[in-house]
């Protein structure tokens, strides 16, 4: 009576199965990129100012990527196919100013700017579309890739504030006077019927830019004074958007500090939608409520060094001894509320979607360079 052998009944042999779980692609081939680049190199003031300006246009044919296929085929793994042709174009500017040395002090500054855009020329063998950027396990795709649009464009519902009262909910109607969001309650998000068909559904999602920044820039400043050297490197991205999937996740599991200030009848002016168990209004749906401006400026590298006078070091048979101290990622200026506005993407089709990945860390370094 005391113990029964549950679970594994005696002599349960495990049989190993094997079967095709992936499809081969006999037509696979390498990607090819054709680039056109036109540029000007310039130099003024006896070399004090120099730089390059480039305009480029490249076309990648037969881009390789894991391609979603219908699971009615029996296969859920994604084969690699030459799924797309993509065009990238943009310009780059790089310019340096060197201040001539005087009294042992010299400095130079370099500015890099670049801008690029891309567009899908061809997608797949049937002009389909690829959804990705899932922010809820495999639910809730936030990006779409299709012909004529940029790679991994955000494809989201358009939100428009919060219903402050039941009257607001009742007023949000279509042309026939039917409520567009009958399951909503005061405190829920309002979504727009963008295609005007009188129904709020997946057809009302709109393309809202993508994860590529409008401007990518970097500034390097070097200065030397006697035996000291200073290096400052800043970089940043301007006009960058990011879908804050991590914030959505925290809202969904009631773990965000923002929720302390959520809408309640006694706090009707809040911009945080109301807490609810069942989320009947689907406030968690992919919308621009979670799309944020992730432009940033980061002090990426700061380093101060001192090289000991060579007269001293030569006695110890050391040619050059430099000590330095510095910091990486010291400061970041951004309005983005997620961990890191400079996250690298998880995949080709989900660029710009933040799923709460580990951010870059700030570090402090100190060291010695020795040359014999």
């Amino acid at each position, binding site marked *: 009576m005391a113990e029964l052998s*549950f679970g594994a009944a005696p002599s349960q042999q*495990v*049989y190993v199965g094997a079967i095709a779980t992936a499809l081969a692609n006999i037509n696979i081939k390498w990607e090819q990129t054709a680039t056109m680049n036109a540029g000007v190199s310039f130099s003024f003031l006896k070399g004090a100012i120099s730089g390059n300006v480039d305009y480029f246009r490249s076309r990648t044919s037969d881009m390789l990527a894991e*391609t979603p296929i219908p699971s009615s*085929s*029996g296969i859920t793994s994604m084969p690699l196919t030459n799924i797309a042709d993509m065009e990238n174009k943009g310009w780059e500017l790089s310019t340096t100013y060197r201040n001539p040395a005087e009294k042992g002090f010299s400095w130079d500054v370099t500015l890099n700017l670049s801008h690029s855009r891309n567009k899908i020329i061809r997608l797949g063998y049937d002009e*389909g579309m690829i959804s990705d950027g899932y922010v809820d396990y495999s639910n809730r795709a936030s990006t779409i890739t299709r012909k004529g649009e940029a790679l991994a464009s955000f494809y989201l519902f358009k939100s428009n504030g919060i219903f402050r009262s039941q009257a607001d909910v009742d007023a949000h109607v279509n042309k026939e006077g039917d409520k567009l969001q009958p399951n909503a309650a005061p405190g829920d998000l309002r979504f727009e019927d963008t295609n005007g068909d009188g129904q709020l559904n997946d057809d009302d999602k709109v393309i809202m830019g993508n994860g590529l920044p409008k401007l990518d820039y970097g500034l390097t400043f070097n200065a030397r004074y006697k035996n000291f050297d200073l290096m400052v490197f800043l970089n940043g991205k301007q006009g960058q958007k990011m879908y804050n999937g991590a914030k959505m996740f925290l809202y969904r599991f009631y773990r965000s500090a923002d929720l302390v200030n959520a809408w309640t009848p006694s706090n009707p002016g809040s911009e945080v939608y109301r807490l609810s168990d069942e989320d*009947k209004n689907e406030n968690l749906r992919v919308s621009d409520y979670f799309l944020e401006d992730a432009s940033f400026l980061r002090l990426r590298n700061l380093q101060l060094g001192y090289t000991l006078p060579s007269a001293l070091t030569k006695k110890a048979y050391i040619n050059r001894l430099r000590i330095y101290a510095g910091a990486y990622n010291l400061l970041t200026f951004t309005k983005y509320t997620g961990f890191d506005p400079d996250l690298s993407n998880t995949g080709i089709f989900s660029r710009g979607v933040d799923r709460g990945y580990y951010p870059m860390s700030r570090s402090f370094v100190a060291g010695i360079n020795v040359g014999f």
Partner: protein
Amino acid sequence: MKLKIAALAFFSATLFTACSDKFLELDDKQNLTENTFWSTRQHALQGITATYGALQAYDGSKWTWFESVYTTLNYKGDDIDNNKNEPYGKNLAAFVNSADDNGAWSLWATAYTGIGRANQVIAKVPGIAVMAETERTQIVGEAKFLRAYNYFLLVNGFENVPLVLTFEKDITKLQVPQSPKEAIWAQIEKDLTEAEAILPETYPAEYKGRATKGAAKAMLGKMFLFQEKWAQAEAKFREIYGKYALNDNFADNFNGTKENGPESIFEIQWSGDRTVSDERHPFNFEVRPGALDGWELMYPSDWLVQTLKNDKTDTGGYSDRVYGTIFFDDPNSYMWDLGTPASRIPYADVKGTMVRQVYFNKYAYPNDRSGAYVGYNISIIRYADVLLMLAEAANENNKTAEATGFVNEVRTRAKAKLISGLGKDQLREHIRQVERPTELAMEWGIRWFDLMRWARGNTAKLNVKGTLQAHGKPSAANYVEDKHIRYPIPLKEISVNPLLKQNHLY
């Protein structure tokens, strides 16, 4: 001189034209490929094993199996009240899911993975000349059974699904349109009938659990029942009547002691084994209360508890199946803990320390390894279900007295008081809303599909919304007629297969 050069040129020319590109084609020696697989008996057995494996989930993961497939199949039912703090199946259970719900896609993918593998077996195994003809046909029969079972899930769940009967290897040809549901039902019947003819009655001990003739008959009967073909259903179930036996102990159906035993007709096979791959599942943790080391993913609904509490013995106590289904405030109610060896914990010991009053006891049994996930099989069809389905069919064929007898066989096993004197309509109501939920509460793929077939059928057509509301299902008010009777065609599928049309109102 000239001749020599001419001769050389001639030879060179022939050398070049004689060459072909064949030597550029290399076989993949690292992986099994189509060229090397499907040539031995071992391959055939591996192929059919993999097809059975798809019953667990499309990726073989125990988490997908519970969190995505079980919740999709079962959470909408009025017997389960899901824990609203957990995301799995939450939107489906509240009837607010959108078309991109992951649960619906997981069910679709799991069924089609099983179908795709079955298609491979059906196409390739007959060509394995080294095997005996009988064994080849038997394996094909098993594949057809599994294919039919998976289409059964799809047609009941989604209604409008593509009929895929061959394993397509060309990536550009994977887009297929949906077929009318009559075509799917017809294919299910064809596959099951062919399987019925070929499959053996039993297997040797080491292969117990593979599809048998009886399993094919049971599925056929169920298929007829779902289409309201009462006469054919009754006839088919009678063919297996008496071939199986109810376990003496109700709980033995769920604690692994009588796996593939006398009451088992077809089960999803698991074992506690971890040496080859992880063959366990976490079902016991999902239902147990936190006070007893569980995660409380779901609770018995109030209506279910009420219905169960009406299931009394002749002397006025509760029947075995009440104690075997729920853990509740009663001196005879207990749950095993997770120690080794496990001890029985009476309800009184944990009363007041738990979040809710009543929990599921079914499938809450521990392993013989302390605190680990378990390996007992999950029943897809068992003999008690067949008896109740036989009763339902017989009743519709106006054999109410005999039907009552079948119901009473099930009741006798659980020591529940016998029923008598019910008319045809009363017995139908009793089977639908009392007997089946009491005997088969929260079991794999039962309650929700039952509600759907009674709603689709023409015999005493069920008002689903009314029933859900009467049974206190939370968010029943969100149920929309002619929408929630099906799952949505997954948005992920429609994105890559523009031939698919979304189901009504999604």
